[in-house]
């Protein structure tokens, strides 16, 4: 019997096809379960902490885990998802890069039978992820904005530094802030620019804004890294005593700066609570639970000078 090259190629393709299906649907009951922790960036200590806490909780629950850094790049994130699925990870604890751009990755994982638990950042889909554990950024910024209005006595000029424009947290924080501040005609926003949640970029952006607007009274920043960058720019311009800086996150250097009176307030998020909840939910999923709340908000608490002693970086003392 003689095979023509065409039949041989067809046979190889069919075998390859079955191998692919086998890879995708591999379910071993003997192997220990593994969790992939895919985070938007490890270039920000807040996300490093989130990833570390998720890995620690996974270990405590008896699972292997590996951290993947998406470097704020959705295509790299897609590669990580494909790797995680083909390498047989059983759940993904996920901090998305982009609310819209990350949806397809989550859908692919879910379709492959791998549950995805979003941490801190939201994707714009209610049924793609198994559950989304999210900081209540909007409400946290409503609280900060009330304090902002009181501190400025309803009058003044201010700058807003936004985070990544593709991230829902950026807009939830900004909208929460404006839902309060925009009620006061005496508060005038002289500039609103993105600094991508980045400290150095925030410093450069504010330095440039200060040239055109040297008489601002306050800066509201969508995260603490930008708040520190803004403070550096103000200090370099000799305006740090006059201009009030507000952040969001609860990062270590900002908590210390609030104690020192350099930063007025921040919104304390609880990354450990989010990471632990995500890992615990994955554990419950492995044990058969399927009924998870689609969204689980985590309350944000405002930290200012008079209560800063109750808090440490990334959470409570």
């Amino acid at each position, binding site marked *: 019997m003689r095979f023509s090259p065409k039949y041989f190629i067809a046979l190889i393709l069919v075998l390859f096809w079955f191998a692919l299906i086998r890879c995708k649907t591999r379910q071993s009951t003997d192997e220990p379960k593994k969790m992939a922790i895919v985070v938007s960036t490890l270039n920000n200590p807040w996300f490093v902490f989130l990833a570390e806490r998720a890995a620690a909780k996974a270990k405590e629950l008896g699972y292997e885990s590996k951290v993947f850094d998406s470097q704020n790049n959705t295509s790299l994130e897609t590669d990580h998802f494909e790797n995680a699925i083909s390498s047989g990870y059983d759940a993904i604890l996920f901090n998305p890069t982009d609310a819209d751009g990350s949806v397809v990755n989550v859908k692919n994982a879910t379709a492959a039978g791998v549950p995805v638990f979003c941490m801190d950042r*939201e994707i*714009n889909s*209610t049924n793609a992820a198994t559950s989304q*554990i*999210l900081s*209540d950024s*909007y*409400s946290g910024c*409503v*609280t900060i*904005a*009330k304090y902002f*209005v*009181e501190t400025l006595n309803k009058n003044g000029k201010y700058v807003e530094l936004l985070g990544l424009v593709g991230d*829902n947290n950026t*807009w*939830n924080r900004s*909208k*929460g802030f404006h*839902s*309060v501040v925009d009620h006061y005609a005496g508060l005038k926003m002289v500039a609103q620019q993105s600094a991508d949640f980045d400290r150095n970029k925030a410093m450069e952006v504010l330095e440039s804004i200060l040239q055109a607007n040297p008489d601002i009274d306050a800066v509201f920043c969508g995260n603490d890294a930008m708040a520190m960058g803004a403070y550096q720019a103000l200090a370099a311009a000799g305006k740090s005593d006059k201009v009030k800086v507000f952040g969001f996150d609860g990062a270590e250097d900002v908590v210390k700066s609030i104690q020192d009176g350099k930063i007025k307030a921040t919104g304390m998020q*609880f990354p450990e*609570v989010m990471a632990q*909840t995500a890992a615990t939910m994955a554990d419950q999923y492995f044990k058969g639970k399927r009924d998870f*709340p*689609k*969204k*689980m*908000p*985590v*309350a*944000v*608490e405002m930290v200012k000078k008079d*209560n800063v002693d*109750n808090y440490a970086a990334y959470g*409570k003392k």
Partner: protein
Amino acid sequence: MKKIIRYVASLVLVALVAYNSVYFKKLDEVKAGTASFNAAKYASEFWTKKLLPHTTRAIEIGQLLTLLQTDKNKAFSDYSHALGIGNVRYFLVKGSGTVQAVEENQVLVKVASEREKPEVILVTEFVFGNAVRDASGEIDINEFTNSMDFNNVSAEINKIIREKIIPPFKSKVKRGDRINFIGAIELNKEHLNTRSIEIIPVDLKITN
């Protein structure tokens, strides 16, 4: 004949792969989640159909403060609501008292109660946040496609308070008036502070 079968099989395979690779959806359907949601309408219906009927279950503020001192966990588990994880929780409270001062941003009230008789702050200026939306426990975040829709409900509820509840009260109230109030408060379970309780009003009546 073999050739035809081969072509048909190849076509079926290609069609199958193509069908499973691409799908079409109307943009209207994709955007419908947020665009079609009317937060003002939702808030108005929530106010009349869920919140106001629920006010009969509000706890008297003096009784709540006594319970917080004697059994904090019971007070939080029996009377507070919150939608997620965390220490910030909301209570629906009621009470009566005498107006001590009418200030720019608030009205100070000395509560008349058989239990604790604190001085509380009725907020008349900074009516923001989720206290009123969440205090009744009658709202479910999973009903909402997008978090912004859910947040907009709070904004619209607060607008009802700013436009319909506060102005008729603020225009008449003066020091010494006796009033009845129903409202929502926010307390942090871990860092409990009952020294300056701020009440976001849901119902205010001058009863002189």
